[in-house]
């Protein structure tokens, strides 16, 4: 019997984590208990930025990572974090199909494999102001928690502010920030509705969690176990995308019930944000080089 540890960064109730638990159960059942995967949710084993390295170094055989977290290392990890490149579940699925072979190649070089990836719900703008165009965003105190969110702020003339996730609620309550970009789920979990009443459903990007595995650990399994693992992973991917859509629908209802206005962006705001997106895509392509161009071309052909 083989035992694997699977560190994950998100809490037990999150739909990604629930999916991981089901995946682990499926694998155990399909292999008659020959491969047992223990999920360590909520960063209880390793913290989010450490998980990729832990899998690479064999401290964990398998792990779940947020791909965009690793864009500093290789820009293509961050392809699903470029605003307005893929702005719906359908286009995000296409982007993943274009991204996957290149990711597989990169992870292979690092001694890892990717099993599956599932998108987070689409990102919108939480703000205390009414936004009719990007000009209305000038001077907003904007939480910048990643290179992309900081750059958006710069491009629209908002002030990027660094606030850690742990202090988000307090920062909103005391006015340290008055706007940030995230999914409906984050807004609900952090009780954003107590301080900010508007959410613009811009569907700016859909970041993905990927489940990666140490290749040596994978190759140490016998063939039937490997096949069972890959089959369970494929099922988890399908299930995960469906659950993501479902979770998004539910959480938006819950936000509404708590007084949050779910707003569609105006045509002007959409056009302005598209311009921001184009600029950021251009900058990203400069950084990512021919590989990046290849990815965008492949995605646009799908």
């Amino acid at each position: 019997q083989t035992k694997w540890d699977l560190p994950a960064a998100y809490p037990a109730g999150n739909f990604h984590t629930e999916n991981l638990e089901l995946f682990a159960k499926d694998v155990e059942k399909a292999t008659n208990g020959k491969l047992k995967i223990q999920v360590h949710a909520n960063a209880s084993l390793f913290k989010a930025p450490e998980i990729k390295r832990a899998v690479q170094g064999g401290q964990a055989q398998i792990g779940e990572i947020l791909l965009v977290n690793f864009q500093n290392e290789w820009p293509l990890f961050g392809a699903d974090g470029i605003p307005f490149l893929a702005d719906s579940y359908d286009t995000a699925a296409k982007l993943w199909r274009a991204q996957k072979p290149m990711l597989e190649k990169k992870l292979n070089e690092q001694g890892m494999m990717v099993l599956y990836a599932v998108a987070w719900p689409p990102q919108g703008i939480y703000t205390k102001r009414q936004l009719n165009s990007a000009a209305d965003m000038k001077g907003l105190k904007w939480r910048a928690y990643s290179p992309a969110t900081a750059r958006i702020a710069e491009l629209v003339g908002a002030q990027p502010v660094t606030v850690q996730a742990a202090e988000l609620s307090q920062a909103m309550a005391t006015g340290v920030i008055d706007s940030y970009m995230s999914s409906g789920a984050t807004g609900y979990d952090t009780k954003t509705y107590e301080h900010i009443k508007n959410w613009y459903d811009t569907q700016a990007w859909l970041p993905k969690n990927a489940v990666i595995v140490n290749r040596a650990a994978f190759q140490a399994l016998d063939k039937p176990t490997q096949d069972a693992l890959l089959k369970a992973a494929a099922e988890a991917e399908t299930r995960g995308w469906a659950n993501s859509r479902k979770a998004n629908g539910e959480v938006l209802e819950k936000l509404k019930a708590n007084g949050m206005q779910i707003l569609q962006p105006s045509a002007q705001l959409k056009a302005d944000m598209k311009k921001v997106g184009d600029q950021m895509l251009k900058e990203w392509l400069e950084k990512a080089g021919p590989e990046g161009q290849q990815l965008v071309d492949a995605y646009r052909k799908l």
Partner: protein
Amino acid sequence: MRRLLDFLYDGAAWLAALAMVGVLAMVLLSIVSRQVGFHVPGTDAYAGYAMAAAGFLALAHTLKRNEHIRVTLLLGRLKGGARRGLEIWALSAGVLLAALFAFYSVRLAWVSRSINDISTSNDATPLWIPQLAMAVGTLVLLVALVDEWVLELRGQRKSVESEEALHNE
């Protein structure tokens, strides 16, 4: 030799103190930048690295000043040879653990460099650079513990009574 060693511990401690000032500077910078309206990406990450440097680089100096806490209930009751025996045992265990700590800290920075591990937040720092402080700090701690061990064996170890440790908690 003695002077060289003392210089090593104190030099590392001075760097640690400088890092402590660095923590303050980074946090102040993030407060001020928000008030004045400019943005320095990564101040939070730099504050974290400086804090790590402050902790690790001062390890040996703190040990030499007898300010790392330990339970001295039994040690305090023993006298003569028994006390020395127990001290040597505690120091030996300390040397072994510090050696493991130092070896894997050096390896951490080494592996970070070879696999190109980069900070995932806004600062995008190659992690082996701040991790050098951990590698150096734990190595100096190892040297200090070996130093104490040798002094104890030769019966030259001075016990420093520290009052500083008392105003913590």
